[in-house]
C-alpha cells in the first residue's frame, strides 16, 4: 500500500510539475470565458456612428430612411455635393445613390465609399430599408392597404417558447443543446487525453526499460494501478482548477456587466419590471438588440450547474477508469510508437463512434438511440453528459452508472493481465493471437 502511494505521488507530481499542465490549466478557462464573453461584448460594444448621405433621384424615399444608433441617414440634394462632402468630411462614411428609372420602381442603388470601407451591416441595413419602403409603396399605393394594416402585418413576429409540463419550467432547449454538446466534447477529450497519457506513460516505461527494475520492487498490477490513479488525480486537479478559474472569470464578467444579468433576470419575471421601473425597461430595450445573448444568459441561469458538475465528476472518474485501464493494457503492448495505432484503435473506436453520433443524441436526447448509448459503458460517459442538461430520469442514470461500476473492475482485470505479460516482452512483435493466448486457462 505504501509503495502504491509512492507510485501515485510520482505519477502525479511529475505531471503537475510540468509547464504544459499549467498552460492547459490557464488556457482552457480563458477559452471558455472567451466563448462566453465575446458575444456579450459584441452585442454591447459602442458602435462607431456611420453617416450616410442619401441622394435620391427617384424622389420616392423622402424621409423613408430611419436613422438608428449606429447609422445616421442624411439627405443631400445632388451627387456632386454629396461626393464633395464624402471627400472633405471624415464623419461621412458613404453616399447612397438611388438613380431615377423609366419605371416607377427603382431597380438598383449604389453605395459609394472612399478608402474607408463601410461596415457590413450598413449594406444590409440600406438594402432592408430600401426594400421595406418599396414594399410599403407597392402595398399602399398599388393595392390600397392602409398604414395601420401595413404596420400590423409588419409587426407580426412569433417566437417559439418551449416548456416542460412535468417540471413546469421553460425549456431553453437551444441553450441545453449547447451545454450538452460542450459537456460531451469535454468528457470525450479528457478521457482521450488522460487515457492517452496512461498509454504513453506505460509504453515509455516499457521502451526505456525502467519497468523491470520497478516490477522487481512492486507487483506489476500495483505499478499499473498507481499510474492510472496518479494520472486520474492529475485530471481531477485540472478540473478543480478549471472550475475555480471559470467561476472567478464568471464573477468577473458579472461584476463588469451587472446590468446584463439584472435585465436578464427581470425579463424572466415580468412583475419585477414594474417594481424596477423605467430603468429596467430601458435596459431591456437595449437588450432587445441582442436577444440571443439574453436568451443564453436566461438559459444559463435556469440550468442546474451543481448537478451537472456532480454528474460530470462521476462520469469522468468512471469513464476515465473504464478507458485508462484499457489504455494501460495497450501501452504495455507497445514497444515503439509505430505500433501504438494497431492496439489503441480498438479502444478509441467506441469513443470516435459516439462522437459521430453526437448530433443524433442532441437531436433526440430522450430517444431510444440516446438512451441505449447512455447505458453502454463504452459510450455512456459521453452520451450521458450530452443528455444531462435536458434532464435524465434517475433510474436511467442509476443503470448507466451501475453498468460502468461493473465494467471498470472487469476492464482492470483484463488490462492487468495484458499489462503483466506485455511490459516484459521486449523486441518481440506481439500479435492479437498472443494476447488471446494469455487469457486461455492453463
Amino acid at each position, binding site marked *: 500500500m505504501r509503495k502504491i502511494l*509512492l507510485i501515485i505521488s510520482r505519477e502525479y507530481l*511529475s505531471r503537475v510539475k510540468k509547464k504544459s499542465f499549467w498552460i492547459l490549466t490557464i488556457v482552457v478557462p480563458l477559452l471558455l470565458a472567451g466563448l462566453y464573453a465575446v458575444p456579450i461584448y459584441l452585442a454591447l460594444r459602442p458602435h462607431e456612428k456611420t453617416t450616410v448621405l442619401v441622394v435620391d433621384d427617384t424622389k420616392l424615399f423622402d424621409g423613408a430612411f430611419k436613422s438608428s444608433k449606429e447609422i445616421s441617414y442624411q439627405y443631400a440634394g445632388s451627387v456632386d455635393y454629396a461626393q464633395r462632402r464624402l471627400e472633405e468630411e471624415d464623419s461621412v462614411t458613404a453616399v447612397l445613390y438611388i438613380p431615377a428609372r423609366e419605371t416607377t420602381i427603382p431597380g438598383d442603388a449604389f453605395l459609394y465609399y472612399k478608402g474607408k470601407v463601410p461596415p457590413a451591416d450598413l449594406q444590409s441595413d440600406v438594402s432592408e430599408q430600401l426594400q421595406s419602403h418599396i414594399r410599403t409603396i407597392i402595398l399602399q399605393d398599388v393595392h390600397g392597404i392602409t398604414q395601420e394594416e401595413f404596420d400590423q402585418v409588419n409587426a407580426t413576429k412569433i417566437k417559439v417558447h418551449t416548456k416542460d409540463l412535468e417540471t413546469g419550467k421553460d425549456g431553453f432547449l437551444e441553450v441545453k443543446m449547447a451545454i450538452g454538446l460542450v459537456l460531451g466534447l469535454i468528457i470525450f477529450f479528457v478521457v482521450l487525453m488522460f487515457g492517452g497519457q496512461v498509454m504513453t506513460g506505460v509504453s515509455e*516505461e516499457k521502451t526505456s*526499460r525502467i519497468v523491470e527494475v520497478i516490477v*522487481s520492487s512492486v507487483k506489476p498490477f500495483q505499478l499499473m494501478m498507481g499510474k492510472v490513479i496518479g494520472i486520474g488525480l492529475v485530471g481531477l486537479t485540472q478540473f478543480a482548477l478549471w472550475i475555480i478559474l471559470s467561476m472567478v472569470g464568471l464573477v468577473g464578467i458579472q461584476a463588469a456587466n451587472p446590468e446584463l444579468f439584472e435585465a436578464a433576470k427581470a425579463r424572466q419575471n415580468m412583475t419585477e419590471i414594474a417594481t424596477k421601473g423605467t430603468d429596467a425597461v430601458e435596459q431591456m430595450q437595449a437588450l432587445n438588440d441582442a436577444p440571443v445573448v439574453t436568451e443564453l444568459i436566461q438559459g444559463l441561469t435556469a440550468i442546474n450547474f451543481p448537478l451537472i458538475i456532480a454528474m460530470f465528476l462521476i462520469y469522468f472518474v468512471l469513464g476515465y477508469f473504464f478507458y485508462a485501464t484499457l489504455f494501460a493494457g495497450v501501452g504495455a503492448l507497445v514497444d515503439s510508437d509505430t505500433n501504438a495505432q494497431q492496439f489503441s484503435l480498438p479502444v478509441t473506436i467506441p469513443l470516435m463512434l459516439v462522437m459521430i453520433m453526437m448530433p443524433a443524441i442532441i437531436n433526440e436526447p430522450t430517444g431510444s438511440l440516446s438512451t441505449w448509448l447512455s447505458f453502454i459503458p463504452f459510450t455512456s460517459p459521453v452520451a450521458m453528459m450530452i443528455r444531462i442538461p435536458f434532464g435524465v430520469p434517475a433510474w436511467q442514470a442509476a443503470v448507466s452508472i451501475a453498468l460502468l461500476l461493473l465494467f471498470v473492475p472487469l476492464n482492470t482485470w483484463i488490462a492487468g493481465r495484458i499489462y503483466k505479460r506485455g511490459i516484459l516482452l521486449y523486441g518481440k512483435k506481439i500479435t492479437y493471437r498472443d494476447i488471446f493466448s494469455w487469457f486461455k486457462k492453463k
Partner: protein
Amino acid sequence: MLQVEHVTKTYGDFYALRDVSAEVTTGHIFGLLGPNGAGKSTLIRIVNQILQADEGTIVFDGHPIRQSDVENIGYLPEERGLYKKMKVGEQAMYLARLKGLSQSEAEKRLHWWFRHLEIDTWWNRKVEELSKGMQQKVQFVTTVLHNPKLLIFDEPFSGFDPVNATLLKKEILRLRDEGATVIFSTHNMSSVEEICDDIALINHAEVVLSGNVKEIRQSYRKNLYHIEARHSDDNSIALPSGFEVKNANDEKGLYVADVSLPSSASSNDLLSALMPQGQVTALQEILPSMNDIFIEAVSQ
C-alpha cells in the same frame, strides 16, 4: 541463501524452464550460465517474483519466498533503463523508497554512494543529459543501495564500458566480502571463471551442469600439461609413445609444448621422462576453460 527446487515454467507448449534446481550458498558468487534464450532470465524473474513458477518452489533465507523478500534482493536486469525526464537524485530516491527505504535513510545512503563513485555533481541533472556509462553507474547504485542480502545481475557487463565494468567488478567483490550473496547471469563464460565460486549451466530450459567452479574444472580435466624445458643444442626433446604433443615450439634451446597424457600416466611420469633430456623450468596442468566445458556439456 537461495534454493531453487524443481522449478518449471511454460509458455503455452514452450518450456522456458524444466525441472530446474540450484543452490546458492550464502556469501558466494553464483554464476548462472547458458546461451541466450536458455531460460536464465526467466529463472531470475521468478526469483524476483516478477513471474510465477508453474511448479516448484524458491526458498529464500530458509523460508518459501514471499513478496516482502524483494526488499532483500537487489536486481539489475539485462534490459535496464531509467526515467529519462527525471532528475538523477529524485529518481534514485524513488527507486530506493520503492525498495522500502525511508526518505532520510535513502537520502543518506545515496549521498554516500554518489560521493563514493564520484557522481555527486549529477544529483540535479536529468537522466537524458547523462551518457550511457553515467546512467549505468546510477543504475548500479540503485541496485545495491538497500544493502540487499542477495544481489542479482543479469548480463551485468553487457553495455558497460571497460572502465565501468572494472569498477562494477570491484564493487561487487567488495559487497560480497561484506556478506552479500551474488548471482551473475551471463552467456559470457570468460567473465565468470575468475569471480564465480559456483555455477549452474542452463541449456534448453534445463540445468546441464552445476557445482563449484574449481571442482567442475577438476572433473573436466583432460590430463593436459604445459611444459617448458631447456636443453643443449645437440639434442632435442622426445617423449614416450602415448604422450601427445600439441603446439610444440623449440627455439634457441627452449622447448615449449602442451602435452596430453594417457590416462594411465601422471604429471610425475611426464616429469621423469623430461628430466634426463634437459632442465625443466615449468610444468603446469592446463584445466579446461569454462567455455570449453560449456561447449562440451552442451554438445553432450
